[in-house]
């Protein structure tokens, strides 16, 4: 298996807070990796450092064999790394279709408008937005906006997809539909790195899980190993010795 993304000793400090502290991990092609941890563990910051929203103080990000550390976000997107945000960021005034066209146009393949429109339609259809293509993005429901966020990222035909809590705020039926969607995305050959709080989803989807706590990597392993790791349980629930 080839390594698609390799993160080495990332560090980021905001004022007096060490948000990310010496975090290293690798993502193999074709896998789903779960990134979990309590609130404030530095998960979203790690995403920001990977896709060029902010620059690490120290450390290196290598994607597809190329060093992309500190490159601007649009270059990284071009290289084939797409992201769905935790707080949805639709282009409100543009139609659902045009939102996806932007993704396809400026993504990895740098397509011309007509081809981009074709792909955008196809992806929007696949994510169940086919009947709302002409609506402005602002008219969608929360679940719809989450799907749009994902559709837009997928339209870029990425090699690696960063999913930042795409399940948060969805009701149980919507959650099940979204889990199915994520599985289908992986089956189509896209590698996924996902932040998620819903344990049922992370445990069933991930091949491997990385746990962050207070900016540092606490543990890494298969879902089973993580579920039984005493340090992980302590980070989430407090020290187990104190309970017994």
């Amino acid at each position, binding site marked *: 298996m080839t390594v698609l993304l390799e993160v080495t000793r990332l560090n980021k400090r905001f004022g007096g807070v060490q948000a990310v502290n010496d975090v290293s991990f690798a993502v193999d092609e074709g896998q789903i990796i779960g990134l979990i941890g309590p609130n404030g563990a530095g998960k979203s910051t790690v995403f920001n450092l990977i*896709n060029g*929203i902010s620059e690490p103080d120290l450390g290196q990000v290598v994607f597809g064999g190329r060093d992309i550390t500190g490159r*601007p*976000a*649009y270059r990284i*997107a*071009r290289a084939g790394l*797409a*992201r769905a*945000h935790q707080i949805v*960021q*639709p*282009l*409100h*005034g*543009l139609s659902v279709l*045009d939102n996806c*066209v*932007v*993704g396809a*146009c*400026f*993504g990895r393949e740098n397509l*011309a*408008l007509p081809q*981009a429109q074709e792909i955008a339609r196809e992806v929007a259809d696949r994510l169940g937005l086919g009947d709302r293509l002409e609506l402005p993005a602002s008219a969608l429901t929360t679940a719809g906006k989450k799907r749009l966020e994902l559709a*837009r990222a997928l339209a*870029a035909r990425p090699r690696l997809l960063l999913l930042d809590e795409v399940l948060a705020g969805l009701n149980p039926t919507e959650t099940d539909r979204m889990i199915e969607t994520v599985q289908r995305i992986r089956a189509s050959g896209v590698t996924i790195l996902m932040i998620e709080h819903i344990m049922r989803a992370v445990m069933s989807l991930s091949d491997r899980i990385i746990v962050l706590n207070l900016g540092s990597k606490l543990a890494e392993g298969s879902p089973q190993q993580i579920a039984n790791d005493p340090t992980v349980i302590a980070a989430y629930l407090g020290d187990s010795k104190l309970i017994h």
Partner: protein
Amino acid sequence: MKLVWRRPFPWIITVVALAFALVPYVTNDVQLRESLILAAVYIVLASNLNLMIGYAGYVNFGNIVFFGLGGYFCLFMVNAWRWNVLSASLASGVIVSALALLFGLGILRLRGAFFALATIGVNAAIQQLVTNFEPWGGATGIYLSLDAYGPLGGPRQALWTVYLLVVAATLASLLSSYAIKRSKFGLGLLAIGQNESAAAVLGVPTPLYKALAYSVSAFLPAVVGGLYFYKTGIIEPSGAFSLSLSIEAIVMVMLGGQGTVIGPALGAFLYEEMRRFLLTAAAFSNFQLVIAGALLLTIVLFVPGGLMGFVYRRWPRTQKALE
């Protein structure tokens, strides 16, 4: 480009522009021509400003600097180098556009109000620079002598030629605004206007696109600045870099509907009609500025989409034909 002509809109505006060009010419109505040339100049200013405000979401308060600089370059070439007005105004457009690209790469790192302030600063700085620049006549500016109109067959004929050239620039403004809106470049700009950070994450090369938009929006205003000041025969710093005209251009864009193709042109035309009406009474000297202020406030508060935004919301089908 081929795709663009398949829709009705380019044909509609071409016909309107032809009417603009022909009616005063056929009726030989000089007064009508003088009123329409001002409307045409305003349309060029508003339509190009719309590329920044309406598409990319950047309020360029100092947009008049392109117009003024274009006028200065053009009159200098006509006066000192004896160039004909067409080559001089086109050359001015290219120079100002290139300068805008350089400036744009710098000041477009700023966002929101900071960008708007920086553009006012650019306009003020260039005005000061020109005021102290002796080869361009300093504070008194550049005057053209009558023989500058010789190559066009004397002043009377030159005014007609300039009028037709300005109408051609107006048509070019609207066509390019339309072509840009329907292009990949335009989609990128619209994405930037909606949410710049999200656009960058989606792969839109934001610094380059913004600077290009700034540069493109400088070209035709500079060309028309050259033609306009050639027509008046005199240019001086306070007239060329008038901040109030800059703000009036913003009112035109907002009045007609920012982000639409036809809106800014409509806004510019209506604004010029209103201004002309008010000017007929001497008591109302510059009274249009008071109305402009009130208009801007009303639009921003109650009809943020402007006239065309309102029409497209009410009758969505019209947007398919007009944009």
